[in-house]
């Protein structure tokens, strides 16, 4: 049993790339959690993709043993948090398991949009906050200025900030010392009834379902019967352990501690993150406040390019789901793309990451259809239905009105790009809520329809600000929208994979972009092919692909007909990835490219 006053549970909140993972690595190194050989850069970002993209997707945890200057041994539990807007929900859940946070700011960049969003979450969670200014080794580092910024913008005292370079390791020990001093130890009740929070769960090929828990009261030990209150299920605890950062078995986890539990749980879906855990034999009466489950907000279809891969895609999705309960999927059948799945994600990045993992880890080639959000269709007869697939769009005459989700977006951008950013937001039907300044950087708050954001907003924002704009958002509310289903017709046949729900006023310009793009992408056919965007029966944009005019072998090589026959066979092989639409064939690449967001 560990003395509770010697425990500190903390998270690091930061904008992406401010050095969170690097700092975590340095702390692990400093505390001797891993020897040099085991120490790969950014050990906490364990998935290949995380390491490659340099972002943290799933929260990870590590226990550090630290002997402070006061001569005592402390246990520091670090919960690494994801650094991207899509995963802000996971941030809040990580924060709920700790008493304090390190606010990490890149001293050469200053406060960014996610710095703000995350630190406010930490403040809301009643955290003690230790301010750490990173990257002081850089010539552009201006820690004094950033300190002032933090005080001005966030309104917290920054006088005791620690200056570090996570890269060189300078100041990292000071961070550990300050953590011990500044952060409160966990508190506990006088009785010893088990009260714990289910922080996360995932599937491990060797161990089965692993749950990450924070114990608030009492203790969890091997052999006991654990109750998950919301799930209303009981499990015998088989194993209890901590990550230091390798998984290591311990006898028990007691109040204040964070660790993992294995309890013969069959699937991740049987666990619900935020659930309260208690002792089945002497359960507490009221669960902890917990937190809301994460809900998918962005949907799209995922189809295998090779239709023979359908079963493999299904298996792979199921496997991924074991580790990531935040995305969902169901079967979908598209005439254009064959059999596939309709999937829901926390955001666009989440979508991209899942797609990439499917392609990389499971060697699948996929087509991703245009992302959609969840609409609420109010029918004339009073019925309300949620829709996230244009294919399910009901007959407009039966609909009273449709609501769409709006977000509140915080964008920080250097003054010189403000004009373009405002224009982008206005073009995307945004309404301005606030505009203020931090130094020469503007902080704009906009309400935006989410469906304009999933289209290509983030990429556009990055490109018009040359990468300087930072962005964070939260779902806000649903509002009535002037929404229609726009269809794309090629040679007068609707291509379901390209249908999308759009604002009526924006339909024409979007339709035009897609028609133009398709015209470039579809190879010429034996006759001219109209490419149209239409709402209901009304065509709103049109392009014509002119007919192929010359495609013939001028010379038949003497009696060598085999040559021509072989050429035809080769051509046929090259056209394997063609899809037949009535009289014409469209290469699948054309769909993929037309659907590719963000490069128009």
């Amino acid at each position, binding site marked *: 049993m560990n003395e509770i006053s010697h425990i500190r549970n903390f998270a690091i909140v930061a904008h992406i790339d401010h050095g969170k993972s690097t700092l975590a690595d340095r702390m692990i190194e400093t505390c001797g959690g891993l020897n040099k050989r085991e120490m790969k850069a950014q050990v906490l970002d364990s998935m290949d993709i995380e390491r490659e993209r340099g972002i943290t997707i799933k929260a990870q945890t590590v226990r550090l043993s630290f002997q402070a200057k006061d001569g005592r041994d402390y246990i520091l539990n670090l919960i690494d948090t994801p650094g991207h807007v899509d995963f802000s929900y996971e941030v809040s859940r990580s924060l709920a398991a700790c008493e304090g946070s390190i606010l990490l700011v890149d001293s050469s960049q200053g406060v960014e949009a996610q710095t703000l969003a995350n630190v406010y979450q930490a403040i809301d969670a009643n955290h003690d906050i230790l301010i750490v200014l990173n990257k002081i080794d850089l010539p552009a580092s201006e820690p004094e200025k950033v300190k002032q910024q933090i005080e001005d913008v966030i309104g917290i005292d920054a006088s005791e900030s620690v200056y570090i370079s996570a890269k060189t390791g300078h100041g990292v020990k000071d961070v550990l010392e300050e953590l011990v001093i500044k952060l409160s130890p966990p508190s506990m009740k006088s009785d010893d009834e088990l009260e714990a929070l289910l922080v996360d769960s995932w599937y491990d090929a060797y161990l089965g379902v692993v749950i990450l828990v924070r114990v608030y009261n009492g203790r969890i030990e091997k052999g006991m019967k654990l109750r998950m209150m919301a799930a209303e299920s009981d499990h015998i605890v088989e194993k209890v352990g901590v990550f230091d950062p390798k998984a290591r078995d311990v006898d028990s986890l007691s109040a204040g501690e964070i660790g993992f539990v294995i309890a013969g749980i069959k699937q991740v879906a049987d666990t619900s993150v935020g659930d309260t855990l208690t002792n089945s034999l002497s359960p507490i009466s009221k669960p902890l406040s917990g937190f809301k489950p994460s809900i998918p907000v962005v949907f799209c279809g995922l189809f295998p390019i090779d239709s023979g891969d359908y079963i493999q895609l299904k298996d792979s999705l199921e496997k991924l789901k074991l580790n990531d309960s935040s995305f969902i999927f169901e079967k979908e059948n598209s005439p254009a793309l064959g059999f596939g799945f309709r999937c829901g994600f926390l955001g666009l990045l989440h979508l991209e990451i899942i797609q990439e993992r499917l392609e990389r880890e499971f060697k699948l080639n996929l087509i991703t259809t245009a992302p959609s959000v969840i609409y609420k269709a109010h029918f004339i007869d009073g019925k309300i239905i949620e829709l996230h697939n244009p294919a399910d769009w009901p007959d407009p005459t039966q609909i009273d009105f449709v609501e769409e989700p709006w977000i509140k977006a915080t964008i920080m951008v250097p003054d010189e790009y403000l004009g373009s950013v405002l224009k982008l937001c206005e073009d995307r039907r945004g309404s301005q809520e606030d505009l203020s300044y931090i130094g020469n950087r503007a902080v704009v708050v906009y309400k935006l329809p989410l469906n304009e954001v999933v289209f290509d907003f983030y990429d556009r924002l990055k490109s018009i600000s040359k990468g300087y704009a930072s962005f964070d958002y939260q779902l806000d509310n649903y509002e009535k929208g002037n929404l229609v289903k726009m269809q794309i017709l090629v040679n007068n046949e609707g291509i379901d994979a390209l249908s999308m729900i759009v604002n009526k006023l924006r339909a024409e310009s979007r339709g035009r972009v897609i028609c133009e793009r398709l015209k470039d992408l579809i190879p010429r056919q*034996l006759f001219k092919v109209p490419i149209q965007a239409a709402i209901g029966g009304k065509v709103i944009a049109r392009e014509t692909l002119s007919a*192929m*005019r010359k495609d*013939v072998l*001028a010379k*038949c090589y*003497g*009696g060598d*007909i085999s040559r021509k026959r072989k050429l035809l066979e080769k051509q046929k092989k090259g*056209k394997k990835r063609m899809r037949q639409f009535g009289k014409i064939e469209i290469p699948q690449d054309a769909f993929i490219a037309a659907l590719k967001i963000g490069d128009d």
Partner: protein
Amino acid sequence: MKSLGIYIHWPWCKTICPYCDFNVKKFEEIDTDTWLKAYIKEIKNISLFTNLKEVKSIYFGGGTPSLISAEFIEKVINFISNNFSISSSVEITIEANPSSTKYNNLYNFKLAGVNRISLGVQSFNNRDLKFLGRDHDSYQAKKAIKHINTLFNKANFDIIYGIPDQKISTFKKELNEIFNFAQSLGHLSIYQLTIEPRTPFYKLLKSGKLNLPSEEKLSDMYFMIQEISERYKLPQYEISNHSTFGHESIHNLGYWRYNQYLGIGPGAHSRVSKNSNRMSLIQIKSPKEWLNAVIKDTNGIANKEILSKNEAAMEVLITGLRLKEFLPNDRFNQFSKLKLEEIIEKPLIKGLIEEGLIESKKSKIRTTSKGKAVLNSILYRFDKVINSNY
């Protein structure tokens, strides 16, 4: 009245043109007697694969067969006539390059039995001739045509168009000159320049140094040819071939009608009947190896296979749809399980008819002039119908 053609391939040329992808080699000292022996032996070998006796056409192609002596040609012709019966209307063609077409040569070829000349003019424009790497100029070409005209009743010359930087306006003027000469000979082959892999032109194209006319321009040129050829009464009877009535190439029509033919010489192809199937024979490609095999071993055959019914059916279309005349359904149906009558009812093919690319009459079919310009894509559809049963 089944017809048989014989093709003799002569693989040598004085210089190799940068666009050429035929089985050719730069001329070197060769032992003519050995080569003659080889051709004669191989004609005998290959003739065993057909039971047809009457030869309707003989074609000396290349390469540059006009480099061969008339004596050589005569011995080959004589050997063929001793082993087959020669049709009274037999057509015997030799391909000639203007640089090796003196009046005397032509005259001797005529005495040897040759009754048709096919001359590789390529262009009457010296700049283009130079670009094409030819070893003759337009003056030599015109002179050769004149000699041919006085000596032969049937003759052809070849033209290449779609040359980099070629302008529509200049091409139009050239076409008039071309058709004037063609009218006097009664036949013209006019080919769009094809850039073939592994040729010097291909490398130029890949390195961006070949400014080929656009698809639009090429199509305009093609239709311009059709229009002018009608005016000169030399209508298209095959995609790239034009003739006055009765001056069509009997030998080449044999390929396009999918008749039987024997190909002798390095890399030459044969198609012969084998029960109700078609058999393909291919000769060894390398001239040296071919000669060795024929002289020292049994024969020069590199590959011998019976084509599947569908392969043969596709070949009927590949060849037959190049022609202006209708393709009779029995030529196709003898091979294909799916009959032509059914095929033209399939949506993929029906679409072609609706779009005016194909015409059908009493279930015979043919490509229209517009259709011929995009024959590749048309064949692709037929292939899909026949082999994937679309």
